[in-house]
C-alpha cells in the first residue's frame, strides 16, 4: 500500500518535472548558444498564460494552447532582433541587467493590461477528474500535459540531432569561431532558438493556466525553479536538463510525502549536493567560451 502511494508521488513528480522542463529547456538553449542568462524567460511564460486565457474566451482551449505559444514565439523574434542581439559579445552583466529590466517591464505591462488581481481560467470539462488504474490514481489533465511534454521533447531532440539546423546550433555552442570560419552565420539560428525557447515557456504557461493562479508575478515564481533545473542538469546538455527537471519534480514529491515541511527546500538541497559532486552539473559539457 505504502509503495503504491509512493509510486503515485513519483509519477506525479515526473509530470511536474515535465512542466519545469518546458521552461528550463529554452533557458538552457538560449544560454548555451548565445551566452545570455535570460532573466526575462519567466515573463514569456506569464505572457503565454495570459494570452492563452484570453484566446480561450473566444476560440476555446484547443486553439489557445496552439496560438498562444506561436504569438509569444513571434514576440521572441522582436526580443532577439532588437534586444538580445546587441549583447552577445558584451559583458554578461549587461545582458543580465537588460533581461531583468525586461522581466519587470513585462510584469508591469501585464498589470496595466489585465490588472493586478489574478484572472480566472478553468480546465475544459473533458479533461477534469482522475484516471484510476486499479488503486493507482492520476489526474487526467496532467496526463495530457505529460503527453504534450513528451511530444515537444521528441520534436526538439529531432530538431537538434537530425537536421542541419541542429548541427549548426550544436556546433555553435562549442565552437562559434569555427562555425563562422565555415561561412555560416549563427544569428538567424539564434533567432530561431530564442523563438523556440520562449515559445516552449509560453506553452508551459498555456497548459498551467487552468491549474495554477494566473497573476502578473507568475513569471518570477517559475524562473527560480527553472534556473535550479538548468544548473543541476548542466549547460549544453539536452539530456542533462531533461534528467534534472524530472529529478527535481520527483525529489519534491517524495520529500513532501515523507517530510512535507522540507518540500520546497528539497530542490535547493538537491542542487547543492549535485554541485558539490559535479560543479558543472549532471551532464554539463566543458564549453570553452564560458571557461
Amino acid at each position, binding site marked *: 500500500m505504502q509503495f503504491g*502511494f509512493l509510486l503515485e508521488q513519483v509519477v506525479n513528480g515526473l509530470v511536474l518535472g515535465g512542466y519545469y522542463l518546458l521552461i528550463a529547456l529554452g533557458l538552457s538553449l538560449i544560454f548555451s548558444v548565445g551566452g545570455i542568462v535570460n532573466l526575462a524567460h519567466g515573463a514569456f511564460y506569464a505572457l503565454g498564460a495570459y494570452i492563452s486565457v484570453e484566446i480561450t474566451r473566444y476560440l476555446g482551449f484547443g486553439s489557445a494552447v496552439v496560438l498562444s505559444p506561436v504569438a509569444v514565439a513571434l514576440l521572441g523574434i522582436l526580443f532577439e532582433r532588437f534586444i538580445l542581439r546587441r549583447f552577445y559579445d558584451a559583458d554578461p552583466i549587461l545582458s543580465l541587467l537588460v533581461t531583468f529590466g525586461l522581466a519587470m517591464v513585462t510584469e508591469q505591462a501585464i498589470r496595466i493590461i489585465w490588472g493586478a*488581481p489574478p484572472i480566472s481560467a478553468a480546465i475544459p*470539462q473533458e479533461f477534469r477528474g482522475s484516471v484510476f488504474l486499479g488503486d493507482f490514481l492520476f489526474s487526467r489533465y*496532467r496526463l495530457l500535459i505529460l503527453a504534450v511534454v513528451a511530444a515537444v521533447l521528441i520534436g526538439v531532440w529531432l530538431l537538434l540531432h537530425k537536421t542541419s539546423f541542429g548541427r549548426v546550433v550544436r556546433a555553435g555552442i562549442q565552437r562559434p569561431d569555427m562555425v563562422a570560419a565555415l561561412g555560416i552565420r549563427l544569428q538567424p539560428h539564434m533567432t530561431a532558438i530564442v523563438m523556440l525557447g520562449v515559445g516552449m515557456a509560453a506553452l508551459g504557461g498555456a497548459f498551467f493556466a487552468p491549474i495554477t*493562479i494566473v497573476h502578473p508575478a507568475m513569471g518570477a515564481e517559475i524562473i527560480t525553479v527553472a534556473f535550479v533545473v538548468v544548473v543541476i542538469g548542466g549547460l549544453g546538455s539536452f539530456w542533462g536538463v531533461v534528467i534534472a527537471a524530472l529529478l527535481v519534480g520527483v525529489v519534491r514529491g517524495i520529500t513532501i510525502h515523507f517530510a512535507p515541511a522540507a518540500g520546497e527546500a528539497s530542490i535547493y538541497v538537491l542542487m547543492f549536493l549535485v554541485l558539490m559532486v559535479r560543479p558543472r552539473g549532471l551532464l554539463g559539457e566543458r564549453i570553452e567560451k564560458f571557461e
Partner: protein
Amino acid sequence: MPLTGFLGAIGSYAQLGVKMAAEEINASGGILGKPIDLMSEDSVNPATASTKAQRMIEQDGAVLLFGEISSASSLTIMQVAERNKKVFFSTGARSDALRGKDCNRYSFHCDIPNTVMVNAVGTALKQKGMVKGKKFVTLTADYIFGHDLLKAAKAFFSANDATLIGDELIATDVTDFSPYLLKVRQAKPDVVCCNLAGNQVTNLVKQYAEFGFPYPLVGFNLNTGDAWAMGEGNLSGTWPTVWYHTLDNPASKTFVETFTKKYGKPPENHAWIEYITLKMIAQAINETKSTESDALIAYFEKQTQFDIMKSRKAYFRSWDHQLVQEAYPFTVKPKGEMKDKWDMLVLGEAVPGAGAELESIYPTKTQNPCNMKA
C-alpha cells in the same frame, strides 16, 4: 498593504477602497477642515512592513496607521504603533493571537478573527450534518495566521465530535499542491478543509477540481478576490466571508454602485473594509476634534456604534479592540444562475442568528485573553 506576493491581489482591491473613501471625505470638506493626505506602501514582508510603518510615522508625520492583510506583518506594525503611541487599524489580518496574547492598546482589529470564520462555516456545516462523527483532513498555511486558524479549527472539531485524521502545513510559496492532494486521497477523509490564505486558496481549489476527488472541500478562510480568480466550475463547498457585494441593504447597494461605476468592477471585501475603516476614523476625528491617540482610543472604547453596511451595527469591543459584526457562510452559485462573473456566491443567513448577541460567535475573555498595558 501587501501589493505583491501571495496576498498582493486582494491588497490591490484594498487600495481602491481606501482611495475612494479618501476622495469622498475630501470632497465633503475633509477632516477638521483639512484634506486627508493618504500615503500608501507595499508592505512586502513583516520586517519591511515595520520599517515602512516606522518611517511613515517618523519622517512623513503620519497621524495614524491602517491597513495590512497578513497577520505576520500586522503583528510587526502593531509593535511599531505601540512603541510610537500611534493608533493602528489592522484591517485585514485575521489571526486570533493579534486580539489575544499579542494585543495592545493602540491596535484595533476590523476583520473577523479566525474563531468567527470557523464558527460561521462550522454552523453551516453542522446544519448539513457534515461535522458529527466525520473525519477531516486540513491543509494549513505555515505561518502565524494558519497556525492560529488550525488551533481554532481543532477546538471546533473536538467540541463537535469530529476527528482530525491528517493535517498538512504548507509553506506560503507553494504553488503546486498535487503531492499534498495525493496524500489527502491516501487518508480517505470525509471532508477536506482548507486553512490557507490569499492566492494559495485559489491554487488549491483549482487543483482540487482538477483531480476531482469525491470528498467535499470546505474552508475556514476565503476572500472573494481569490474566489473570483478561480475560474468557472472550480469552487464548491461552504466558506466564510465578512462582506459580499450582493448584501441587501441600502448603504451597501449605494457603495457597490459608486465603486463599480468608478472602477468598472464590484468591490471585493478588502475594498469594503478599507472604505468603512477610513470612514470610521474620519467620524472619530471629526467628533473628538482631535487626532491625538488617547482621544481616539477613548472614542472607540466607548463602543460607539457604526453603520458598516450590514443589517446590524458594529462596534469595537473595549477589552480587545475587535470590531464586533455579522459574518456570513456562503456556498457557490450554480453556473446558470450567475448574473455576471462576480456573482458567484450564495450568502447564507448572517451569523450569529437574529436572536443571538453579536458577541456570541467571538472568542471570550477566557478563550483569548488580552491584557493591554495602560
